[in-house]
């Protein structure tokens, strides 16, 4: 057990249907303004008829261990917190967008009130011992909240024996979102 937390997610794309419940749950929970979202769904189809394959993914800030947004933020608004997540201090944010240019995952947007906004991994819920809004609504249980410093047997079992990847690992960001590939065979 580690005292320091390092929250992130393991996302099972085998079961995700791209319904977007996660997006609406987040919008309600966090009062995300109309026209914007902190998480989003990607449906990716490849191949040609009839040899097609598909992956559905719910994406958001990857709460990187080595986050370019934190590195490049000139005011220290973007920072790591004690949950191992990346947060934005709104009162320090000048809306300069350096973080948006630095983020390889396009996870941020300019809030109509002038600051930069993104997924907080529902820090206010983590504080209360709750799962994030998106994890708790997900009908397929594709989304799993994990403390990577204190992996439970259940969270270890999620990935064991399966093809798992992270996005843009070459960028050196050490993202904390892990994806169980839709390419896994049934029962993997």
């Amino acid at each position, binding site marked *: 057990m580690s005292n320091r937390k390092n929250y992130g997610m393991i996302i099972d794309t085998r079961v995700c249907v791209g319904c977007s419940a996660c997006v609406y749950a987040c919008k*309600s*929970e966090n009062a995300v303004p109309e026209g914007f*979202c902190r998480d989003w769904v990607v*449906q990716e189809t490849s191949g040609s008829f009839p040899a097609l394959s*598909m992956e559905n993914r719910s994406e958001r800030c990857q709460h990187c261990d080595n986050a370019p947004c934190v590195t490049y933020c000139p005011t220290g608004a973007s920072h790591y917190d004690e949950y191992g997540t990346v947060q934005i201090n709104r009162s320090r944010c000048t809306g300069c967008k350096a973080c948006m240019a630095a983020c390889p995952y396009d996870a941020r947007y300019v809030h*109509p009130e002038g600051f930069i906004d993104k997924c907080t991994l529902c820090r*206010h819920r983590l504080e209360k011992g709750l799962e994030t809004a998106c994890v708790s609504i997900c*009908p397929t249980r594709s989304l799993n909240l994990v403390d990577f410093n204190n992996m439970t047997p259940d969270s270890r079992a999620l990935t064991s024996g399966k093809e798992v990847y992270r996005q843009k690992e070459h960028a050196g960001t050490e993202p904390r979102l892990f994806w169980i590939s839709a390419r896994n065979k*049934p029962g993997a």
Partner: protein
Amino acid sequence: MKYGQNMSRRDFIRISSLFLAGAAAMPVIPAGILSGMGSRPEGKTDGKIVYSFCEHCFWRCGIAVHVSDGKVTKITGSEHHPLSNGRLCPRGAGGTGLLYDPDRLAHPLVRETRGGRQQYRKASWDEAVTIVAEKLYKIHGEYGPGAIAMLHHGFGVSFFKKMLSEIGVNKIAKPSYDLCCGPARQASVLTYGYPSDTPEGFDIMNSKYMIFFGTHFGENMHNTAVQEISEAIRRGAKIAVFDPRYSTLAGKAEHWLPIKPATDIAMMQALMHVLISENIYDKPFVDQYTVGFGELWDSVREMTPEKAAEITDVPAEAIRTVAREYAFHAPAAFVHSGRRTNWYGDALQRIRAIHILNALVGNFRMPGGVVAFQKFPLPQPPAAHEHPAYEKEAYSKYPFFPQDEPSNTIASHEIVQQAIAGEIKALLIYGVNLPETMTLGRQAALDALQKLDFSVAVDVLPSEVTGYVDVVLPECTYLERYDDLDNGRAFRTPFVALRQPAVKPMFETKPGSEIARMITDKWGLHGVFAPTVEAGLDKKLKLAGSSLEEIKKKGVLVMPATDLYRKPGEPLNLKTPSGKVELASAQLKAGGFDAVPKYMPHPEAPRDYYRMLTGRKPMLTFGRTANNRFLGDLASARENEVWVNTAVASKHSLTNGEYVHLKNQAGVVSEFPVKVKVTERIRQDAVYMVHGFGHSSKQLTWAYKRGASHNQLISRTDIDPAMGAVGFQNNFVTFVKEA
């Protein structure tokens, strides 16, 4: 408005925005949810929780409604309710978008003619209800109860059913039955002797092999089914999907078989052929528990995989593979009966074929197979009031339309046709947006609405139908009212659920329970309903050993799980004529129909036309959500697209993202253009568009002119001669480029 030109008697009225919620709705919207100024500090959404159930689709999941300062801030899945299991689909989460819709109906409205022009004027509830009570009473007296009918969609209708039953009116139809679940229900009755219900009777979670024909879980977010399919996938289940389109579910499948549309029964016969000819069916089960095997074999003997391959465009070897894998995994394997089942007017036989495929592998009441969920046994209080017997002749003319459901006595298209013929003089329309409902297409709906002597709509939004009636009664939403108890759902753990208000009714809206009571009071029929809706609910619950106070806490009473599986050698005692599973149906034969399903060819597309297939988006339920700004906020929800295969797009010089009009085989051109989605995910002989877009009512300020209406392009319907369901996939469209 093109279709408005031929109207003589009842002009379409654009409800003045003065009579809608408008700005009055805005100040009560929680800051940031819709206003675009989301500065509310995070974490303030967890106020009081009210447990209720959802009304965004027929599934009726349990919801936890979070209320702060008298406002609903968010809706999550109820952890107590067996159908939501703590989880919720996007539509359920989007209830705030309906509750705080600025287009909501706010006042009772009455049609009047002033200066030669028809318009609505605001009326008091007493005046509006008096008009409805008087008109219905007069038509009842003049023409009898058979001249009055109701079309309904939504759980709140129970009070209006009771109201009409008091004057002997039982011409009651729900269009959803004819388009969606009806054939599956009746096929189950004919094969097993009991109706399949919601959730459909399949042990999805424990299945190892699931075959789906054209139904697309994941795009239709039937919460519990989607949860169980996900669990089955995690446990290693394999999926085979027959669908002309690469649906989201096909994306999860081991085998996607892009079947030629309208040939499904041939495919099912070929699967039966392989099971029987290779002797991999469950012979002991078939011998002991079924009748009609000989007749079945005779009917599929000729349907070899090779013959089926020519008809269905699926290779013979793939057909054999699926049949063998299915038999290998049986009895923990099934073919799902699907939802929105009526496609070509032969759905009863197609779903019968599905149940025969299930029976052949002996999966009946086996883990991972077909199961019979149970309902919560809720005793009904004795009738408080004597009322006239139903007029039996009001029942549907279709022999296998259900005879045992007082809420659904006749097909919706029969009501539309009887209205056009002048037999029905008065129509109560509860939550059905008739011009955009796939009953007989838009034109027939408008013809029917024109012919009526009197019509009244009970609705929440100014949907198209509210422009064509004489009186509009604004109901409050499901988040602002009590309704009847829900014990209509059979599931693993039988339950009864409560709908209760999370907030007070807004504007001048009223709950259906009150509206129906006001009308019966005007008729002088006092005491039809309990003194208050709460008292009525409490009385019912006390009969079941509970109380309103108790059920309010969790919104649901849940029984322990029932035993779903049969024991070896256990007699089935089915309520079919033979007491067994009927592979060949003696009832169908006696009615003059095929006892076993037979493939019959359907019309083919004219040259350069494509079969129009339809479905839905996971965050939308057609009319219920069309104007929901909260749900419509995502780019994927804003409009429908027409899916066109890459080769077809190239032939018609269509580029991805361009807008075209669609024209059907009867020459009807879509009122609005629709965006082209060029994709590999569909066959070259079909196009696909989501239903429920292209609204023409300007009062639906969000939905107006978004995408194209699928309903407008239905000119041909195929009615199932046995049970009366309506198929509409024999419509074909081509592309009209914008000038």
